[in-house]
């Protein structure tokens, strides 16, 4: 675009008192030949905005507002169609340095000897950085698919899947349900009664599954494929190509698996070249087409809802033997009990006699108060429900529930209360220490009960409250034809559940356009699963709407930029493919990346990873950030006898940048030697920026971002972790330049830890000071 610049320097909120804005304009802007410079004591006021708007009406389209943080007054400084840069003079310069002398004020006495105008230098640096950035960025053009497919695929025909399908259909979308069994219904089809679904939460209800099946089958927008599974899902949101198959079938469009790490190296542990890797991959996936070969008979979908549900936990050989499991047929799991109850009265499997005395064991004991593996509030509630079956079947039936913690959270407590009213249902805390069988009769030993003593219960049947294992624990299910592999990533963190790591954003995972619902993401009651299904359906619809507009989904929702690759200079190193947290990039046999922009979340991790620096966004590029870095003035001994240090701080804009703003708002002061450059995510930091900084004499570089590890706070999952790996590697490069590796560091800061900011910064500045100035200074 042809840029016509306007610079707007605001003197409000104390800026004018602390900085000589006229001088800044002369030294920075006019020096570079810019002349359209305006001053105002409140650009955010109607009169101030009018000044900017008038310029825009006269053709100005590249606007630099040097005033407050870009996080505030966004509605006021909203100029569609224009490039806008906000230079943060208020929070980062003036408010954060109340102890510095305002520009123009003369020091007295001995200090007057060599006066360094810290505040003014800082203001000028930030203005120069804003100016340079504006020169380098462009207005984004959204990425649009040639054709957008809106049909939604629902994997799993249980209550969750059917509910998701109905909810999407009711919002006007066409849906296909695939179910691996020959009929719809899932586990909900195998129950006698269901837990209460709504207020007053006191009574069990008859299964709703038949009603759901009827609704699905009669809905004109829903197609059902039973006895079918997904062989592969290729492509990207808005343009997925899905191959279906019969369960157990082996077909050429079964998804290929990435090579295991040990196969990627030769005998000496050296990484194999791309050609050999491609061959090995082919061998490893014999009979399966590569992910980039599209199935000509594949079916198009726009988004996917994963509702493949759960399977019962299967105790291993000998597991729970002390509880009699596997030793006598009269010790069963809750699922085995439910199956029996669904078809008739509850009986003893050993002899078919009525099971009139049933003990429900909630916790396997062994000195711990943990529930069974994969248990949850569902297993507590199910025991309550199943206890009622015993009472329904036999007037003289007795049910005992032995628990460590009765887990009936929220309003489900009402059901617990209702069950407690039944005089034939006995509930007590206790640790079951053993189950023995004698002459066909079971004896259950319980310790630490509420009755204060050890008791032995005589029982016909013992039911263990084993949990619900998500389908994704066993296999990928979604079978994504992605270079990074067919499964959801890192679900080991959640025990195999396809859950989100984000408390605030429960549908966000590492696979754009695929949304999990129901028991596959967490053990849930049917009520919760149905609500979850509606949420997942909304997210699928929202993803399609965003793809249609050519913008990103969460967390950069609405961002129209996307990574642009300059392929001529690509060296097929595959780093972008491997490091993208969202698996948005595939590569071909040669290793050339194939970006899938609608899978992309715009974090810029690929840009940070690329050693050839060929990946850029319209308004965020190697050059735009690099130019900001190079715009930092580095005083040398030619300027001052003791020139101040210059430290570059690359700041994650999601959490660290707001923390810096908060420090400013609280007038927390830190070293005036640092210069902040915001980045989309630390994962997007390219080491060339650090090299640029050090080569112009900047004394140290600090990366400031969020927490990584299992409880990561990175909005892009891997950014801060990848940055830390890259920073470890940069040490060698620095040593080769005879620079100390300590000049580059990464620190974590959470958004609410702004009070720690001064110390983090000052400590780093002190460390660099200790090392002495960068030897390249002045070259």
């Amino acid at each position: 675009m042809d840029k016509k610049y306007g610079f707007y320097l605001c003197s409000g909120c104390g800026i004018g008192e602390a900085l000589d804005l006229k001088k800044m304009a002369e030294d920075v802007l006019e020096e570079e030949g810019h002349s359209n410079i305006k001053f105002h004591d409140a650009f955010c006021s109607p009169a101030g905005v009018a000044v900017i708007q008038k310029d825009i009406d006269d053709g100005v389209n590249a606007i630099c507002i040097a005033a407050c943080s870009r996080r505030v007054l966004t509605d006021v400084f909203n100029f569609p169609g224009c490039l806008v840069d906000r230079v943060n003079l208020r929070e980062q310069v003036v408010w954060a340095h109340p102890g510095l002398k305002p520009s123009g004020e003369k020091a007295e006495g001995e200090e007057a000897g060599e006066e360094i105008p810290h505040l003014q230098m800082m203001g000028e640096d930030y203005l120069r950085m804003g100016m340079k950035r504006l020169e380098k960025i462009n207005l984004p053009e959204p990425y649009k698919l040639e054709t957008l497919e809106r049909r939604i695929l629902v994997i799993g025909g249980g209550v969750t899947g059917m509910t998701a399908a109905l909810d999407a259909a009711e919002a006007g979308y066409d849906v296909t349900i695939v179910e691996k069994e020959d009929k719809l219904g899932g586990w909900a089809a195998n129950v006698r009664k269901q837990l209460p679904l709504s207020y007053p939460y006191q009574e069990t209800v008859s299964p709703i599954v038949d009603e759901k099946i009827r609704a699905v089958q009669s809905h004109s927008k829903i197609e059902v494929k039973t006895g079918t599974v997904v062989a592969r899902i290729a492509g990207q949101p808005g343009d997925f190509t899905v191959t279906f198959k019969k369960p157990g079938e082996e077909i050429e469009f079964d998804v290929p698996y990435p090579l295991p790490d040990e196969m990627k190296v030769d005998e000496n542990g050296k990484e194999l070249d791309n050609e050999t890797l491609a061959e090995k991959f082919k061998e490893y996936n014999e009979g399966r087409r590569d992910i980039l070969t599209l199935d000509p008979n594949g079916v198009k979908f726009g988004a996917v809802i994963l509702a493949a549900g759960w399977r019962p936990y299967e105790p291993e050989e000998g597991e729970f033997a002390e509880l009699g499991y596997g030793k006598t047929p009269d010790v069963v799991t809750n699922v085995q009990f439910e199956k029996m109850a669904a078809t008739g009265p509850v009986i003893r499997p050993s002899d078919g006699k009525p099971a009139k005395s049933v003990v429900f064991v909630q916790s396997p004991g062994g000195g711990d108060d943990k529930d069974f593996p994969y248990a949850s509030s569902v297993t507590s509630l199910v025991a309550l429900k199943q206890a009622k079956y015993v009472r329904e079947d036999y007037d003289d039936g007795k049910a005992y529930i032995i628990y460590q913690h009765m887990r009936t959270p929220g309003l489900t407590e009402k059901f617990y209360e209702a069950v407690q009213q039944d005089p034939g249902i006995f509930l007590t805390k206790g640790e079951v220490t053993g189950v023995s069988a004698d002459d066909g009769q079971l004896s259950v030993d319980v310790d630490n009960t509420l009755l204060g003593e050890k008791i032995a219960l005589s029982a016909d049947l013992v039911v263990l409250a084993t949990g619900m294992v998500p389908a994704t624990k066993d296999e990928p299910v979604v079978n994504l034809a992605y270079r990074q592999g067919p499964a959801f990533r890192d679900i080991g963190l959640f025990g195999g559940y396809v859950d989100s790591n984000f408390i605030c954003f429960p549908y966000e995972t590492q696979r754009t356009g695929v949304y999990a619902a129901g028991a596959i993401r967490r053990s849930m009651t049917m009520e919760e699963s149905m609500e979850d299904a509606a949420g997942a359906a909304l997210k699928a619809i929202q993803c399609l709407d965003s793809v249609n507009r050519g913008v990103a989904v969460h967390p950069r929702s609405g961002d129209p930029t996307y990574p642009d690759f300059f392929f001529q200079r690509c060296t097929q190193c595959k780093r972008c493919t491997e490091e993208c947290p969202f698996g948005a990039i595939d590569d071909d046999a040669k290793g050339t990346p194939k970006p899938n922009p609608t899978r992309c979340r715009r974090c810029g991790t690929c840009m940070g990873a690329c050693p050839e620096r060929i990946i850029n966004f319209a308004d965020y590029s190697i050059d735009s950030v690099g130019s900001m870095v190079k715009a930092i003035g580095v005083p040398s001994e030619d300027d001052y006898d003791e020139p101040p240090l210059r430290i570059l701080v690359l700041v994650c804009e999601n959490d660290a940048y707001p923390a810096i703003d908060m420090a400013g708002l609280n007038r927390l002061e830190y070293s005036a030697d640092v210069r902040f450059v915001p980045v989309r995510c630390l994962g997007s930091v390219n080491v060339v920026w650090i090299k640029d900084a050090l080569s112009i004499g900047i004394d140290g570089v600090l990366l400031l971002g969020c927490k990584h590890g299992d409880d990561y706070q990175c909005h892009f999952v891997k950014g801060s972790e990848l940055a830390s790996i890259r920073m470890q590697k940069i040490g060698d490069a620095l040593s080769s330049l005879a620079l100390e590796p300590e000049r580059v560091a990464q620190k974590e800061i959470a958004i609410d830890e702004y009070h720690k900011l001064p110390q983090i910064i000052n400590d780093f500045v002190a460390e660099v000071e200790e090392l002495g100035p960068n030897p390249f200074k002045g070259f």
Partner: protein
Amino acid sequence: MTDTNATHAKGHILVVGGGISGLTTALEAAEAGYETTIVEKSPSLGGHVSQLKQYFPKLCPPTCGLEINYRRIKDNPRIHVLTMAKVGKVTGGPGNYEVEVTVSPRYVNEKCTCCGECEKAVTTEIDNEFNFNMNKVKAAYLPHEMAFPQRFVISPKIIGTEDAQKAKDACKYGAVDLDMQPEKKTLKVGAIVWATGWEPYDARKMDNLGFGQYDNIITNMMMERMAAPNGPTGGKIVKPSDGKEPKSIAFVQCAGSRDQNHLPYCSYICCMASLKQATYVREQYPDAQVYIFYIDIRAPGNRYEQFYSKIKADEKVTFVKGKVAEVSEDPSGEIVVVAENAVTGEKIRQNVDMVVLATGMQPTASIEKLPADLTFTEEGFIVNDYAKGGMFAAGCAAKPADVVSSNQNATGMALKAIQTLVKA
């Protein structure tokens, strides 16, 4: 190519309440292409989660997610926010509601730059409600530093006084408007999502637990503020009586919850919240002793059970199964917790420096009647009537829940609202 046939159904979605559930419903609907308006009664969004130091089980700051949500609002022209606003009469039906909204005067208009000069100028101090009145703020104040919208408020308490005039005189930007009047608006919307949330149950109602009688008995929400870096003590957990560090703290679970005389349901979050708060204490005071008195530890599912296991492994944390009968102060100034150990049957008297009452969630709708044709449980939760449609409850307005479940639910309710528009 953009599919321009994909026009969205006409109509507007109203979300009542700007806490985490309301924010979620509004944002998810807006990002699916629908116009939404949030009506929030407080001066800023975020509700109770903005008062929390950390979420369980990740121990991450809620402001992190709120910041992203506020950015989503800033970037999305389809979301409209009214703060200090209350919903009045609601008439009409699904697809076609008329809603009266009253916006209370903030006495600060949109010209506010957040420079803080008004705050410096006024001298009157008022109770800081955001911090449960544990400290004071100036009568011209920013609700808290992460407040969105980031705009000052002048307390009606000083309107008509010299102090108010001082605030006005101090403002260089003409942002203080002391003549501001309540403003009535009528919104025409197709669907309404009630995300009116909850209030901490008033601990004063439980005479036996000593809250309000003894300084060193606080509630779990007060603990959140105390532990938060931007709280009344700068994040330091101290005994309110003397500002000194507590050497022992007891958490009293089910303070009001699971009790027919108070809240006849489980409030869902308090067990996990106390386990989390135990980590706050242990981090600050490695030698402090923590006692947790409980009926059941409701830490269901893999992630919560893991978190509970981690706390259990801490030898400084003692779990006692037993309902607390009484909390009081002995003459030495120590707090005495009296409970019966449910397992051993023995009566326990535990002396501690400080007690945290794990008070539960009372639905806001039970405190302030909502002016619409809705069905409520006896406790004041809204019962969703999907067959009728049009109006839905999201998050803790419908049932007690943690943030994850509330947000799942709130996302689903965004779709229910959209379905109403599609069908209308």
